[in-house]
């Protein structure tokens, strides 16, 4: 197990380094000079040149990457070109908002999606199964930003049940949760459908397995078989999917952050790309890539804990 974890951590480091190298190359391919954006239209060419030299932007690209990489090794992600704030601190102010949004969005999807899939599998072929199927596929098919816009219109503008924008005042947990309801609903709805379909398919497969047939032959109660044996195995692919999903949502919930004017890492990266704030783009992506890799690693470890067959292979 220890070897497996070490192996995965080594792989994770390689993934992060590769992602960074690719990103570094890509953001420098996009035309646009951060110096002229930062200094504004009235900046003289001398001021632009001085700024580029100060930020190291006048050096060859491989050299810039090397400097960045060595700084990262020392724990220095650089500084925001506009505020001169350390990038790490800046990302850390946004990350809790992204974690809360991704966590709550996936959380309610798990609470609804997994029982829904399980129920559909047990009641296979019934009209409730078919109805659940239609609802699940619809939830997957509707783009999240459409859900967000309609949720905003109905629950914030018409009914005034929830706030439309922002994240609530810092330090007021209740208020912040209240502000999370609509964005979390919007990003989670599609996941309800995914999880329901995935769990249903897994359950159907497992309910036909030999060990389930054996359990039935022993006369174990159906509820016991379903929840104790079948569901435990059926959620394994779900755990892997959730690991990837959580990692993606940390920086991928940008539409929800824009529609609901929420702070978050996704919007930070988006704004920074537009303003060519390269240190922030790189630092934020480094942190979210790290978290993405961590989430998938955790998902694999949970799978290993739940499934003895996986453990044996380690």
């Amino acid at each position: 197990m220890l070897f497996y974890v070490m192996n995965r951590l080594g792989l994770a480091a390689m993934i992060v380094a590769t992602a960074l190298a690719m990103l570094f190359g890509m953001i420098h391919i996009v035309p646009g000079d951060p110096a002229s954006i930062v200094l504004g239209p009235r900046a003289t060419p001398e001021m632009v040149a001085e700024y580029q030299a100060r930020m190291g932007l006048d050096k060859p690209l491989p050299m810039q990457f090397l400097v960045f990489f060595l700084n990262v090794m020392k724990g220095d992600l650089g500084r925001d070109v506009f505020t001169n704030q350390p990038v790490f601190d800046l990302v850390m102010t946004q990350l809790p908002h992204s974690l809360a949004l991704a966590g709550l969005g996936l959380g309610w999807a798990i609470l609804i999606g997994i029982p829904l899939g399980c129920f559909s599998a047990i009641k296979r072929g019934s009209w409730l199964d078919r109805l659940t199927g239609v609802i699940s596929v619809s939830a997957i098919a509707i783009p999240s930003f459409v859900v967000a816009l309609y949720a905003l219109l109905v629950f914030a503008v018409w009914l005034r049940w929830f706030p439309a924008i922002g994240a609530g005042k810092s330090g007021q947990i209740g208020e912040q949760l209240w502000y999370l309801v609509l964005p979390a609903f919007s990003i989670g709805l599609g996941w309800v459908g995914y999880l329901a379909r995935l769990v249903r398919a897994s359950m159907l497969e497992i309910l036909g397995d030999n060990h389930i047939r054996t359990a039935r032959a022993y006369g174990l109660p159906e509820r016991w078989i379903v929840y104790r044996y079948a569901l435990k195995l059926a959620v394994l692919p779900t755990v892997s999917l959730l690991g990837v999903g959580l990692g993606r949502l940390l920086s991928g919930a940008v539409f929800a952050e824009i529609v609901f004017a929420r702070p978050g890492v996704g919007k930070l990266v988006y704004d920074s790309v537009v303003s060519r704030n390269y240190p922030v783009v790189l630092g934020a992506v480094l942190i979210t890539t790290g978290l993405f890799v961590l989430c998938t690693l955790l998902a694999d470890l949970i799978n290993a804990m739940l499934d003895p067959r996986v453990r044996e292979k380690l």
Partner: protein
Amino acid sequence: MLKSRINRREFLATTALGGAIAAAGPYRPAEAQTKSLKVRSYIAPERLDPIHYLGAPEADIFDCLYPGLISYKPGKEWGWQLDAATSIEQVDPTHVKFELKKGLGWSGGNGEVTAEDVKFSYERIAKPENKSPYRGDWEALDRVDVTSSHTGVIVLKEPFIPLFSTTLPRAAGNIVCKKAVEKLDGQRFTLEPPATFGAYKIKKIEPRVRFTLERNPGWPGERAMFDEVDFVVVTDANAAETAFATGELDVALLPMTAVPRLRKAMPPKSKLVVSPSLAYWWLGMQMEDGIFKDKRVRQAVQYAVDAQSVLDGAFFGVAERSTGIIAPGMIGHRPANKIAKPDLDRARKLLAEAGHPRGFKTEIGVRNSAEFINVGQVIAAGLAQVGIQAEVAPFDSGVQKAMASDKAGGWKKMQMHVVRFSMAPDPSWATVWFTKEQIGEWNWERFPDAEYNDLHKAALREYDAKKRHDMYVRMQDIMEDSGAYVFLTHGVNPVLHRDHFIPALAPDGNRVYVTKFKST
């Protein structure tokens, strides 16, 4: 048959939950009960130091925390009024005497606001070694002489007309605390001003989310209407409109395209102020290389574009056609375009003379937003009538600027472009971008006129308003005669606000002076 499996406990639990939700009722923000104002900030304030600020929303905050000697007078006409000064007088073209109000105190035990602070603030921006992007505002400053604790003289190297129209009333005129700023590393700050003295003080800063100010009890001036002001960061215009509808914003600058929608259905208890913008939109043609090097081709485009269709199609008839780059009401505003209406026959004739009787293919570069793309498409449809097949190519604004500045010739790819530049209320702010020095920077048409350049420089030193006006009119005539420009519109700035107060807005609607709001 379907059998209900709900039991008594489940029924009670469900009923209780439903009752709790019903009792909670619709969401009401707690702030609605306090006397607070929530203003949209369309960019996240990141630099609250006038030496290197980024945009108007930051300058709105400066005026609450550290005003200047004068500020713009809110209303429909451009003019200025005293702010931190009790008097200010231009004694001759290069000397301006001022006297500060007494009793203005810096926060943090930094003493009273003095003429030394004024000297420090203005010379700090002017000094080349400080590399302020706003150095141009003080390019004519020689020094500020301090004559007593509260009086001084601004001494200019040469006459500088925009001093009262754009330097002093804008961010370059705001006063920062010498004692506090000198203690800072690099003598500049970003999100946390080291000292303030205005009608408000900082209550809480949540970076990229909101900037909350509260009343400064030590402010000796006129009492501001609101106890607390929240500058809420809402970068997306649609989100801002929704937030206004739900009561989470009280004042919001919205895009032009919102006007027809709002005129049909206004949110309750609200008002819309539609102010003419100073910004200017135009269709430009790069005249140094490629097909538009031929003046006849450029003129053909001038005759083919139906600007009114652009206004109707892309701006829903909200905005008026512009006659140049200087907005109505300002010195230098041109009464009419030389080519006021499309003339397709003449356009076809010019194309034939230029050797393109069947037209040609080209690209219109636009910024990647719906407004720009719509403008580009309406123009392309008009050009198609004379055989010019123009494809609309959306670009990120940074990419467009990079292409224009590309020393390796990337600018040659920029044949036609739709551009919008913002501006301050002095004509020199519009004309400066089209000088020869700006070729390869902001003069994307690569318009190289020597007479234009001379006029631009002379107008900066011309005190006679009539002569100055004529100079700017002539400059726009030269621009149109070059064939490289089709002036489209200045646009409008719609500001939506609650009806229980009268907002204090700049005449173009682009600045919000929250300290000067009045109750209805």
